[in-house]
């Protein structure tokens, strides 16, 4: 089992969700996060004083999938979240040691 984590532009969340559903993913967890990468931040001005905003709002998407489905899930995210402009975010894949469905107690691939 793999955990696929993506940090994306917030307005792309709907597209990513639909793409993941189409790719057969049955559950998604999202978190509103802030961060910076190569895009950098922006400035805001209040009463003539400039403030640098380094951490931009992003959305973190997490899905757990079977090893066989990793590539299609990653492809779904990458193709749906891409705008070709700086700040589109990243996707990374990590291995999961154990997975348990709370309701039934099923473990491993059964619980995906």
């Amino acid at each position, binding site marked *: 089992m793999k955990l696929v984590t993506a940090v994306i532009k917030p307005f792309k969340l709907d597209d990513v969700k639909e793409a993941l559903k189409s790719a057969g993913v049955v559950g998604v967890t999202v978190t509103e996060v802030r961060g910076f990468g190569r895009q950098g931040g922006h400035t*805001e*001005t*209040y*009463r*003539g*004083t*400039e*403030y640098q905003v380094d951490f931009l709002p992003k959305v973190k998407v997490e899905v757990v999938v079977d090893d066989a489905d990793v590539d299609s899930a990653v492809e779904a995210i990458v193709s749906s979240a891409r705008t070709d402009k700086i700040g589109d975010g990243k996707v990374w894949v990590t291995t999961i040691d154990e997975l348990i469905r709370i309701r039934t107690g099923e473990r491993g691939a059964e619980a995906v």
Partner: protein
Amino acid sequence: MDTGDAAWVLVSSALVLFMTPGLAFFYGGMDRSRNVLNMLMMNFWCLLIIPILWVVVGYSIAGGNFDAAFFGGFGAAFLKDIGLEGEGAMQLLTIAFLGMFAVITPALISGAVAGRMKFAAWAIFAPVWMLLVFAPVFKWVYGGWLGVRGSLDFAGGTAIHVNAGIAALVAVLILGKRKGWPKEGSPPHSMPLVMIGTGILWFGWFGFNAGSALGANGQAVQAFMNTFLAAAAGGLAWVLVERVRDGHPTNLGAASGIVAGLVAVTPACGYVSSMSSIWIGLAAGVICSFAVRLKFKAGFDDALDVVGVHFVGGLVGSLMIGLFADSSHFGNEHLDGLFYGGGLTLLLEQAIANGVTIVYSAVVTALILLALKATVGLRVTEDEELTGLDTVEHGETAYHFGEVTMGRG
């Protein structure tokens, strides 16, 4: 009692009362999210303590004996001998109306001391300041020696905005800077709250200014129109400056300009014509949009720009009466401004009245704060300042997100 006059002043009193919560939102939105409730409470505290103190003794000092030069005395303390017969009802109404001003004037100072003042110190400072600074200066300006000399202040430019503005400057000098200022920025935590507060202030200000005619008459109508125009002109001027200087027209600029225009037209609104009020608003918008940056050059941490908006704006409006006052427009007896054939006399009187107010208010404000510093203390600890005054001083949090944050204790 003229029922028309009474009706208008009744409504105006309620309008002015609404300004204090409006000010609280205006300031609260600009404050940090960890201090917003403390800001609201500093303002609402004035609504709790001042009305009672006002009828006990405040009104008596400020207006008990209208003909006194310096001190209204204690003759009207506890509203002694003020009934409803004859002119009694109108007098009682006037006391209520002026009480609203006594509430909001110390509240204005709260924006400067945001984020580090002990609530206990504020709780004592606000009412004591109202009695020792607001009430006497009010007396001098209205019916007292500064008014008799010829200076004009229709609704409280000198007595309220310059008075509270200079007190705010003294307060931040004695209190000191917030930790991290000016390196660490503290932009407004909620601009929508600022805009709601601005709307409430503008709405309430019609009572503040037009109500100060103390009747439903031509002067009230002109003051109403001037309040309408100067606020718009102030906001317009500030936003245009921003567009040219900083690149963006901002909500905070619009709000600040509206308030600057309102502040400036406050002393002038019953003495100048509609067109003059536009000039006053424009001047206040431009001048205050630069004045708010003085604190960075001079190094005083006036957190929400009480000095740059209220002190400077009040001074601009008060001095511009010396240019634009037009007694013939109202058919009243008072000095005319420079542009209306009055020469420099009124301008000089305006300068004297404001100069006296600045010196007296600065000295007495300093004495009150130094006394508090030596007793209850003025500042919260550094840890408390970083934690935020909402939880430390009030045991409350402004924004609970989600359901996991609270259980029954």
